[in-house]
């Protein structure tokens, strides 16, 4: 008895399984007739259209509340990060093999395009040592202070198009992240150290790695269109002894209130990278 019951149940489920895809008797596809499908799909179409409209509406309201020039909150970026160019935390090349360092050189070259005299001549030469504060004008646009490539001297790529890489004395450019309204107190400068017992010679451009206050504050992409960040170049004057070794270099922003010792954010006001030059 039990077995016949099972059989019947099995048969039923077998036909039920097939029928659930297409039932020829009722013309149902996946348990619904055509009109039923149409109705439910129409419902979902209308429903989702409505939802999309609702979402669009709220997003529109959101965009209305936003300012075009300044983000509503800037408390998540109180201090700038410090990054290096070439954009790699592991500089490793053979100084006698141009193929190995050409990528860095190209990178630096393209990065410095914005600092060419042709670009920077349009910008103002503002007084050094003080913030370049500008009041709101009608069209909101702000002027920018010039930063010429030439300020970087040996690392400008003008005199040495290889940025010292061919000589085993590579240049690294350091820049602080742009943050709207940031006004560092004190006199910020970049200081790099090698994390090992014997220090190596380094040369900073502009001198002492100073970042002039005149480049602050930043007024945002839209208002401050021609703004360029101040750069600091550091040339690692490696000697023969330093070749074929991995040199951990740490650079920090010092001499100001900008944070450079955050526990979690290793790029806040500082940057650590490794340099390996093979002879």
């Amino acid at each position, binding site marked *: *008895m*039990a*077995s016949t*019951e099972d059989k019947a149940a099995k048969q039923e489920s077998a036909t039920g399984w097939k029928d659930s895809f297409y039932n020829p008797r009722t013309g149902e596809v996946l348990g619904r007739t055509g009109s039923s499908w149409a*109705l*439910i799909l129409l*419902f*979902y179409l209308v*429903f*989702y259209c409505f*939802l999309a409209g*609702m*979402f669009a509406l*709220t*997003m529109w309201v*959101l*965009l209305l509340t*936003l300012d075009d*020039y*300044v*983000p*509503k*909150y*800037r408390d*998540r*970026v109180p201090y*700038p*990060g*410090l*990054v290096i160019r070439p*954009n*790699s*935390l592991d500089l490793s090349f053979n100084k006698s093999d141009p193929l190995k360092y050409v990528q860095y050189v190209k990178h630096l070259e393209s990065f410095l395009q914005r600092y060419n005299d042709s670009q920077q001549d349009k910008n103002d030469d503002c007084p050094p040592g003080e913030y370049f504060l500008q009041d709101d004008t009608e069209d909101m646009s702000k002027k920018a202070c010039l930063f010429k490539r030439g300020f970087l001297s040996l690392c400008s790529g003008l005199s040495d198009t290889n940025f010292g890489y061919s000589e085993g004395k590579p240049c690294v450019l350091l*820049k602080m*992240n*742009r*943050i*709207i309204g940031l006004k560092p107190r004190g006199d910020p400068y970049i200081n790099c150290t090698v994390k090992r017992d014997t220090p190596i010679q380094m040369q900073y451009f502009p001198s002492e790695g100073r970042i002039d206050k005149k480049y602050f504050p*930043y007024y*945002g*992409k*839209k208002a*401050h269109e021609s*703004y360029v960040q101040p750069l600091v170049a550091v040339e690692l004057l490696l000697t023969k002894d330093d070749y074929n070794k991995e040199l951990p270099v740490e650079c920090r922003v010092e001499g100001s209130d900008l944070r450079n010792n*955050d526990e*979690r*954010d*290793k*790029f*806040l006001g500082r*940057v650590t990278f490794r340099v390996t030059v093979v002879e």
Partner: protein
Amino acid sequence: MGYGRSDSYRVATTQDKDDRSPKKKKGAKDMDDLKKEVPITEHKMSIEEVCRKYQTDIVQGLTNAKAAEYLIRDGPNALTPPPTTPEWVKFCRQLFGGFSVLLWTGAILCFLAYAIQAATEDDPSRSARSHMFDRLSLCLQLYLGIVLTAVVVITGCFSYFQEAKSSKIMESFKNMVPQQALVIREGEKVQINAEEVVGGDLVEVKGGDRIPADIRVVSAHGCKVDNSSLTGESEPQSRSPDCTHDNPLETRNIAFFSTNCVEGTARGIVICTGDNTVMGRIATLTSGLETGKTPIAKEIEHFIHIITGVAVFLGLTFFILAIVLGYSWLEAVIFLIGIIVANVPEGLLATVTVCLTLTAKRMAKKNCLVKNLEAVETLGSTSTICSDKTGTLTQNRMTVAHMWFDNQIHEADTTEDQSGASFDKSSITWISLARVAALCNRAQFKAGQDQLPILKRDVAGDASESALLKCIELSCGSVRAMRDRNKKVAEIPFNSTNKYQLSVHETEDLNDNRYLLVMKGAPERVLECCSTILVQGKEQPLDEELKEAFQNAYMELGGLGERVLGFCHVLLPEDQYPKGFAFDTDDVNFQTKDLCFVGLMSMIDPPRAAVPDAVGKCRSAGIKVIMVTGDHPITAKAIAKGVGIISEGNETVEDIAARLNIPVSQVNPRDAKACVCHGTDLKDLSQDQMDDILRNHTEIVFARTSPQQKLIIVEGCQRLGAIVAVTGDGVNDSPALKKADIGVAMGISGSDVSKQAADMILLDDNFASIVTGVEEGRLIFDNLKKSIAYTLTSNIPEITPFLLFIIVNIPLPLGTITILCIDLGTDMVPAISLAYEAAESDIMKRQPRNPFRDKLVNERLISIAYGQIVTAGFALGGFFAYFVILAENGFLPTTLVGIRLNWDDRSCNDLEDTYGQQWTYEQRKIVEFTCHTAFFVSIVVVQWADVIICKTRRNSVFQQGMRNKILIFGLFEETALAAFLSYCPGMDVALRMYPLKPSWWFCAFPYSFLIFVYDEVRKLLIRRNPGGWVERETYY
């Protein structure tokens, strides 16, 4: 005690002649064998034949050597305990059963994905993209895997301990006292352990003993046994050496294992021991029965199918999408696994378990102890209740119901304060009747109960006599005093040949030296002894007219299913029986003829007070109540009518035949809604006929059923698709209890075996508690639906962020940790609180759910949960909050699309936002995690509306009200928890959740409000257009 009508039944109830008629059942052979009736034939043999069969001696008993030989051959005389499941198996069942499978699969998939990625970790060809991806999903997979495992293990332990606690209560029921038996071996009486009794042993039992095995009585002295553990009927039955019936269960010369000898002594030969005894067969049958899955287990299985289907469908869709979008195979597989796992509702297992536990606790408070957690819901699905009569529907306490004297039937007053008096108590006839009933009665109250109400006192003695004692004590005051005033001088106790009992007393009147002879017994026997009758206090000759009046009264009371006793007395003439006359009761030397008939009293085991109401409630709840009893059909029918199992105005075939005065065979069985089916007839029915009866009669009483037949009735009901509950207390009920979808045993009167077999125990033995169980069961089913709907709604919004993350390359809007915080944190209390939700409508007024159509989780629930509420509220609310935070921090949506690769690139520390600011990795991650927190908070905000939506399925919240305090607590709890997770210092390190600006809490408010309004409108449409499109498509 076989008085009067009770005996006339015996004639009517010719028992199963052909006990071994083969039943057409396939399957395990020995099980079928057990389902057949008992194959004992010894009762029909002479004592000598029995002795020969067992090679024993009627005087000397077995020799010790023979006994030892038999003991080795047959094994000890004990029931093989049912194979107990080892604790670890039970634990594993909790750990790997039902819903847990889903979570285990999820966990395994997680670890698998983790392993795949860990294995490819060192792959040098990894791109930057896969680097960031690893970090993300490695965490995700491992976290999720561990959490899933933890959830399953914790929930498994929880329900294991919950059930272990219930079974501990069960343990306490067990009676562990080892039994002793008095056997005669080699002519000497020895007291041995009952386990050592073997077939052929000559045993002696006396009042108070437990019968050690099935024995064929060879001699007896006033021996009575209580077969209640076997038949459910507690009426003591006398035992004598004569075969009185073909059916071994009915005959007087067999006493059964584990029944009790209540009085007298008997000697008998053991014919069956251990598992071969009648009791042993029932116990083996019971433990051998396989029980199906509980309805809720089936529902959960169905739910798992649905959810797996949805998960695999979504997973595959996005697997294909990922491939199309150009992800590698490995990444696509990991997406697939991730999406499948994200679909697993982590918190649901715990929620369901807790909901069931809460209901079980609530039911335990109302005297329903649930042994198996899943059985909590089964009563709610029940469509048929097969109830035993004695002790379940009735009080199992004989009570005087009617009296006939002065040519009139009077209703007895059984109220404690005698407020319901319906007759004149000053009538001389009544006083005489009361005196006879009090004096000719050996029952007496046990000592030390004077402060108890009379009806609650314990009585030593036979059930009928106790009933009389209580009745007289109630209406006439102390019986003891009356007996003291009328000292007993002689007595002939009841025996089955006389069918009467008489005693001779001194009279109260000190000046009257006559003796008073009082007699009670089977009415027709008593009447034979009488020549006069007392009417209105005057003795009248017993003429034909009065005899007919007596007959009519006797028939009428008998027809009510009551046991009738006749009473007569006579004052013996002083000249023949002077004071000090020596009455000889053995060789009767006094007048037992020409007595004066006084009246009749009839007794019944009355239904419990709450039962008719409970049966009515079951009926209005669409539950069919079937009475299955071992008692006689007339009594069964009377009680069935009394409690409403056969409702007023419904007739059986026999009733119709009697009314129309035509033979039973001419009545169309379809005309009769009610049916009283006799066990003898049941045996001859084919399966189809059986189905026919069950299908075509709404009100059925099965009388004189054997344990095997009870089982067959339950199977018949289940065959017709019913979910069957069985209530019972005796061992005879236990196979049916086990087979039933839910067996309900009686906690006080129930036997151990029945409690073992049952899923639920009524601690107060009250049938009405079942109604509570049904109500709770239905409520929890509804509420589980709501809980699941609630939990599932937060499930999809947890996947959508991941999907958008893959498709439009935006930063991940919701992380794994926050998903787990929702599933296992904020969602838990509100989901559980829905278990406390009150019913929307009178759940006891609707039909039981159809297990084939009304599913716990159906496609409409999925459609509502996944398609509508989710998208409307959660996903959009959460995404809105996400976009708000990013936009207000500088990343407008336009910038976001496609930003993912750089965003998740650890080495990119000057990512530019829409305003030209540059962000380090850590800075933008904090914003991202703030978004996760906001998404999480938005889900909590939308869950406020969702839990209020889920409170009802049809009613408006404004109709339902907010009276569920736990739910309100849940709302506050989840909000507080969300706030805590967001604002508690240290959370940024521990869970990577960051404080939100107050305004961000409000992002999801419009969506929360939207889904609330949407759902109210939906429910309004459902209410306005019952059966309309909205209801068909969206009512879950």
